[in-house]
């Protein structure tokens, strides 16, 4: 078979895609009407599991954009065992992530030693006002519902 010139081949490509789109539909989705579900490990929004947070500030300090604001105070908690000394714990007063600054690098999620931060694939949280992109700890806590179950470990992997 003789070689088809590239110019003709190019016309064939565009016409082929034209025909395929007419026949099978487009590769894109009509967004507000239909949504495609992102992969479960997509970096949509960061969720906070507040009970695990010790206000250790590691995430805040490692954030390249300084978009995590943490305030806490020390307080005494009841002892673990009866008759023991009251424990001193860090109580989280404020945990804000400014998504107007966040660049979704995920360093905070990786650096957290207490499993308090999680990625969620949820992506629909745009706001008309930029100030509303500052999510406080209640809102970050609500995102926890959208965090998917962690996938099973590979066979043979140690816990």
């Amino acid at each position: 078979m003789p070689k088809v010139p590239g110019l003709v081949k190019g016309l064939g490509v565009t016409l082929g895609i034209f025909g395929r789109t007419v026949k099978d539909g487009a590769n894109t989705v009509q967004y507000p009407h239909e949504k495609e579900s992102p992969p479960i490990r997509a970096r949509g929004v960061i969720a906070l599991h507040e009970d695990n947070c010790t206000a250790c500030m590691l995430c805040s300090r490692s954030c390249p954009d300084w978009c995590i604001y943490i305030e806490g105070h020390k307080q005494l908690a009841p002892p673990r065992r009866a008759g023991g000394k009251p424990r001193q714990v860090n109580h989280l007063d404020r945990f804000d992530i400014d998504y107007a600054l966040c660049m979704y690098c995920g360093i905070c999620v990786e650096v957290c030693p207490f499993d308090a931060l999680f990625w969620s694939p949820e992506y629909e949280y745009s706001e008309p006002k930029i100030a509303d992109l500052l999510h406080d700890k209640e809102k970050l806590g609500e995102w926890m519902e959208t965090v998917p179950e962690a996938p099973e470990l590979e066979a043979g992997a140690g816990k």
Partner: protein
Amino acid sequence: MISVLAVEIPYWGQSLLRVLGGLVAVLLPAGAIVYLFLFKMMSFMQSRLGPMEAGPYGSMQLLAEVGKWLQKEDISPDNVDKTVFKLAPVVVLLSTFLLIVVVPFGPEAVFADLDAGVFYFLAVGSVSVLGILMAGWASANKYSLLGGLRAAGQLIAYELPMVLATLGVVIQAESMNLNRIVEVQNTEAIFGFEWLGNPFVITQFLGFLIFMIAVQAELTQPPFDMPIAESELVSGYMTEYSGFRFLMFFIAEFATAGVFAFIAATLFLGGWGVPFEWFGWDNLDDVSWWMNIVGPLILFTKMLALVFVIMWVRFTYPRFREDQLQTFAWKFLIPLSLANIAVTAILKVAV
């Protein structure tokens, strides 16, 4: 067009009809091209659906776009030559309206049945270069000026192959009157085979190719869109225009595409006519009156088919470099079209 359906129309009525007809003949193809090809075909060729929200399948998108452009501020920068700056888009759009004057839409449905119709459209087709140069010069912007000069160089370079390709048709039809060219195409026969008439796309195939390439370049559609190459010239001569004036450039671009496709269909595809053999007509005077109504539809269909090809090429190829573009015109297309003329002339005399 003195009387339509046996109703006498006064002169002012005729003028009004002509103005309305001209507006429809320019704006309807432009709208159809933008919606069908620029919005929908381009999207489909990129595996997406294009505008879908405004009206069914986005069919009202054009109204939304025009509304958007009308709302925008009409900015003219400080140092522009105000008069020329404001006149330029008018000149460009005007050349489109001047072009439509000679296009025959039916045996009698033509705005002006000029004997030298081909000559007229080739002459008037170059007027838009003036508008583009005016826009480029008056914008007081180096990108606009470069774009304007590139456009001028390109349009002059590709004007020549277009003229020369048209000459082949003129030689074969022995007339410069576009209606006569239509008549010849629909009455003559190829090798005694009368059923199809003799559309010049068959006998003048080389001329047709050269003409379509030249049209592509005249319209500054990719791959010949060096004058508005956005990666180096922002938007070329249109850079400083906004709002309604940009809209006029935009309409002119696609209306001219429509008009050039009308003319290409007239010259090469048999224009408004069907082969006269089908209905037993002998010549132009013989044609039934209803061809004045069906003819425009036939021509419109042929125009859409040609614009499909123009847009198909547009969405497929990357743009030429400036020197490649000029070399292609001067060293390849012009010699080729000269050879085409020579061969056509020899065959015309010999056969």
